[in-house]
């Protein structure tokens, strides 16, 4: 279970997170929506301390991770998490296969001989085949996203944090990735936090959705509740008639 209490973060005087309280239970898919620049990425980065919050508490499986001292201890703690970066953050000094294998060495007990097989399996899950030996610079945007996704899920962590998992993907790939996330929840009981601005992705996948605005989760509820809500904030997000 992930629980945050009055989580706060500001960058050089500008408040980005202004007291976030939320409880995400095991096995849940939790959607986070919000305008560009509202602090969605900052929120999930705080959960693994890629960004250090200014205040508040983050309790993961009963332990306050802001109290974890020392790199070694923190590294052990981060093993519970998989993280899909918004821009992929693939290692461009390594090829596709090496990227996907990368975490297996540090995060799992899989024997080195098995790495390639596991990596190919994950690449297939995201709809990629025969790209193992390509360099990162040779990939298209959507391919990068999927390689990054394969890398993030390779070690099958307990918690998955997805920053815009379907951005830049065509509709059929979007569906494929949504199915994959759902399947990982069903099959492995993986808890997911999904940052997305695609309404249909958030609504079809999430058990609960939060809308981040002015540093707080202004709206939080099941897709059903949110669909029926009359709040103007929700209207702004779910209004599909973007261009007239």
């Amino acid at each position, binding site marked *: 279970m992930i629980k945050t209490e009055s989580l706060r973060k500001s960058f050089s005087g500008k408040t980005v997170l202004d007291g976030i309280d939320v409880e995400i239970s095991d096995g849940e898919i939790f959607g986070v929506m919000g305008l560009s620049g509202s602090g969605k990425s900052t929120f999930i*980065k705080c959960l*693994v301390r*890629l960004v250090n919050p200014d205040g508040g508490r983050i309790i993961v499986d009963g332990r306050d991770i802001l109290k974890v001292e020392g*790199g*070694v201890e923190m*590294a052990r703690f*981060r*093993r519970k*998490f*998989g*993280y899909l*970066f*918004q*821009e992929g*953050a*693939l*290692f*461009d*000094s390594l090829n596709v296969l090496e990227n996907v294998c*990368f*975490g297996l*060495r*540090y*995060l799992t007990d899989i024997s080195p001989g098995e790495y390639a097989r596991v990596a190919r399996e994950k690449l297939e899950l995201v709809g990629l085949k025969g790209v193992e030996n390509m360099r990162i610079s040779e990939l298209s945007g959507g391919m990068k996203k999927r390689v990054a996704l394969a*890398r*993030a899920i390779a*070690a099958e962590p307990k918690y998955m944090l997805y920053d815009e998992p379907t951005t830049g993907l065509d509709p059929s790939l979007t569906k494929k990735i949504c199915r994959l996330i759902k399947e990982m929840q069903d099959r492995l009981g993986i808890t997911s936090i999904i940052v997305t601005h695609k309404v249909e992705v958030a609504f079809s996948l999430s058990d609960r959705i939060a809308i981040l605005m002015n540093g707080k989760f202004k709206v939080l509820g099941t897709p059903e509740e949110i669909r029926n809500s009359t709040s103007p904030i929700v209207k702004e997000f779910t209004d599909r008639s973007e261009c007239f």
Partner: protein
Amino acid sequence: MKTNPFEKIGETFIYASNRAGQLAFMIKSTVIWFFKAPVEYGEIVKQSVRLGVNSVGVVMLTGLFTGMVLALQTGYTSISLFNEPLYIGTVVGFSIVKELGPVLTAMVVAGRAGAAVTAEIGTMKVTEQIDALYTLGTNPSRYLLIPRYFAFFITLPILTIIADFLGVLGGFAVAMIKLRIPSTVYWDNIFIYMDISNFMHGFLKTFFFAFIIATVSCYKGLKTEGGAEGVGKATTESVVGSMLLVLVFDYFISAFFIVIGLI
């Protein structure tokens, strides 16, 4: 609004001690991970080869021409003062082995390999690849810094020996061809006066230089901010910083060596 000069001094002091703190933290965490985790030999070899290949050509040319110009200058100065070229080998040998070999090699390596390291780590920083290292169970100290420290510690001494060798050889060529000094005189001038401690004086410095360049280039890379422009800026700062620190520390290390009798 009037600014208090003490405020400025205080700010500068806080900034500097902040920097020093971050540097110390980086070095500390690198040492900790060196003992806590298995060393990645593959990465060390890869980085050493890259660094060596990257710099060896320029180092050779630098060594060669430095030795040549030293012989030329001492030769003609000596001729104009004493009517004959005296102690060319001695001057070239001592200058190259104790100072110019180590220092110029460090300059070249700072400019090529140090810049490359900062640019690479800086790019990784601004594209979140450094963050990705953390989420994939490792960290920059372990995966990037330890192999690069090793690479500098391994290659800088080797490159320095290459530079020393070519410098002395370049001096020899000029002494023979331009100054018409018999080859035995040139070599005698070196080997009669020079012993192993003179060589060690220069050689041991390279480890300090390696430490300086590795520390500055890695630190500047990890602190990079602001996209591609930031990478360019960090790279320049890294090269200038390494070069200045090498020159400054060179004086103090030399002075220290002289005090302990390693002349």
